[in-house]
């Protein structure tokens, strides 16, 4: 088991190198001079050269990348080119907000997705099933920024049940988390439903029925756990989607999270900030996927025994 975890963590490294290298090259290749952007239109050539040297931009891009990665390995993500604040500090401040948001969305998605998906599957081809599916599709068709704005106007500005923006209390979290889960719930419902329907047709479920178990017993003991397997594997993707979606939620509800930080950095091409965010996000996503794989192992004895033997 430990060996497996270690192996998985080691496998994250090449992926991180790959994605950072890609983005580093991409940002370098992009038209426009970041130094000119930084200094404004009326900077002299000397000023620009000086800054370029200071930022190390006069070196070959691969050497710069190597130097950057060396620095990252020591735990230093560097400082923003714009306000010179250490990126790590900024992260530590903003990260909890984003993570809390992403996790609450994941939580909402799983709870609602599983229960409605199961409900629809068990009542297959009834009006309940149809309505659930239509609602799932309706939600999947809404742009989350629009949904967020509507929630904000209705529940925060008009009804004043929840604060309209910022962070602080649980109440602040409600609307952004709902907005965020919008995109993932529909998919979760559908996956759960189809997975349960797949399992319900399996021969071992018929075996369980032939033992004289009640329908509830059959679904609870024999269907759900097996049906969960493909659903659980998808949680990694769900989390990644939710994590990506925080960009919208944070923008609509003005939450000082990592995503809003990234948007600004992207707009002014603040390379260290973009790189830092990508590295951190990639690590988080990879770790979450690892955790999900471990959960999977608990559910599926084949995988569990595969690890230990």
């Amino acid at each position, binding site marked *: 088991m430990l060996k497996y975890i270690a192996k998985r963590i080691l496998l994250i490294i090449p992926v991180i190198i790959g994605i950072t290298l890609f983005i580093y090259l991409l940002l370098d290749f992009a038209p426009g001079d970041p130094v000119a952007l930084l200094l404004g239109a009326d900077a002299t050539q000397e000023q620009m050269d000086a800054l370029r040297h200071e930022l190390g931009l006069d070196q070959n891009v691969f050497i710069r990348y190597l130097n950057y990665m060396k620095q990252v390995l020591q735990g230093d993500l560097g400082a923003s080119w714009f306000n010179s604040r250490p990126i790590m500090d900024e992260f530590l401040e903003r990260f909890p907000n984003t993570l809390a948001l992403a996790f609450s969305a994941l939580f909402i998605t799983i709870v609602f997705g599983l229960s409605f998906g199961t409900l629809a599957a068990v009542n297959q081809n009834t009006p309940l099933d149809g309505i659930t599916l239509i609602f799932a*599709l309706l939600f999947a068709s*809404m*742009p989350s920024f629009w949904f967020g704005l509507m929630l904000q*106007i209705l529940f925060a500005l008009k009804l004043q049940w929840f604060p309209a923006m910022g962070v602080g209390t649980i109440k602040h979290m409600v609307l952004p988390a709902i907005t965020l889960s919008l995109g993932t719930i529909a998919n979760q419902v559908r996956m759960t439903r189809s997975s349960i329907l797949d399992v319900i*047709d399996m021969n071992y479920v018929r075996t369980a029925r032939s033992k004289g178990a009640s329908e509830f017993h059959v679904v609870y003991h024999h269907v759900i756990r097996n049906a969960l397997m493909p659903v659980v594997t998808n949680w990694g993707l769900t989390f990644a989607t939710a994590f*990506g979606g925080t960009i919208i939620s944070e923008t609509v509800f003005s939450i000082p999270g990592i995503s809003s930080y990234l948007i600004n950095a992207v707009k002014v091409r603040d390379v260290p900030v973009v790189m830092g965010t990508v590295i951190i996000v990639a690590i988080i996503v990879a770790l979450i996927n690892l955790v999900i794989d471990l959960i999977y192992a608990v559910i599926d004895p084949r995988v569990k025994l595969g690890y230990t033997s």
Partner: protein
Amino acid sequence: MKKKEKAKSQSQLGLILFRFKKNKLAYISVYVLILIALAILLAPLYMDYDKAIKQNISERFISPCWEHPFGTDLYGRDLLARVIYGGRISLFAGLAVILFSFIFGVIIGSISGYFGGWVDQILMRFIDIFMAVPTIFLAMAIVTALGATPVNLVIAFVICNIPSYSRIVRSSIMTLRNMEYVEAAKCCGTSNLRIILKHIIPNGIGPVIVTATISLGTAILSISSLGFLGLGIAPPTPEWGTLLADNRYYIRYYPYLGILPGVAIILTVMCVNFIGDGLRDALDPKMKK
């Protein structure tokens, strides 16, 4: 009995179509979507592009009326015109994204799945890299690097979509390449290309088409999301995301500014989703009945 007659001597494609037509919601959606697409495509014939971009401060915030069915925005531009012309970018950029992701995904996935071995290993490691960060982050980075034009937007999302397409194609091909009819084809010396094109892709393409349809909806939404964030199409070109972003602070006072464009987007995307859903059921009849 009559149904049985009808199903006789139909190709698989015919059967799928037959089942698809039985799904009323999906079938209606096809027509609605065609209508929307025509309205958007033929816009220049019945509506001046100027109405969508020309600012006219004296006419700002006019509530929906006969002349401006969706009202006007804060710069006095006709909102219906903006929604329709905005749809050109959202819908067609979305279609382009799906088309190219589909093509590249099928190529990469087929090669990877059919040949397996080290080819598969290398391709899949690349795919892993692009799946390491949420797509919208990746798309943002690419768009910033290349510049915010419709073409670059499409390129960014194509790069983001290729991994998931390749994976679906790959796994469907890995099951198909062990089918006995593929072996039968090998027995008479069929070339690899012909096996892939004639025996594997036609049988494995179904789930990929479903994914493509469903992800068309997602693509439309993602493109407008970037627009909303100010990273998509540069103003004043109308686009569904930017259009809402422009008006976002006024929606609470003039709700039509938010509701009507929103409904337009939802209607379009929902049609796409219903069609995808119908296709999925038609391809996998087990899910019904």
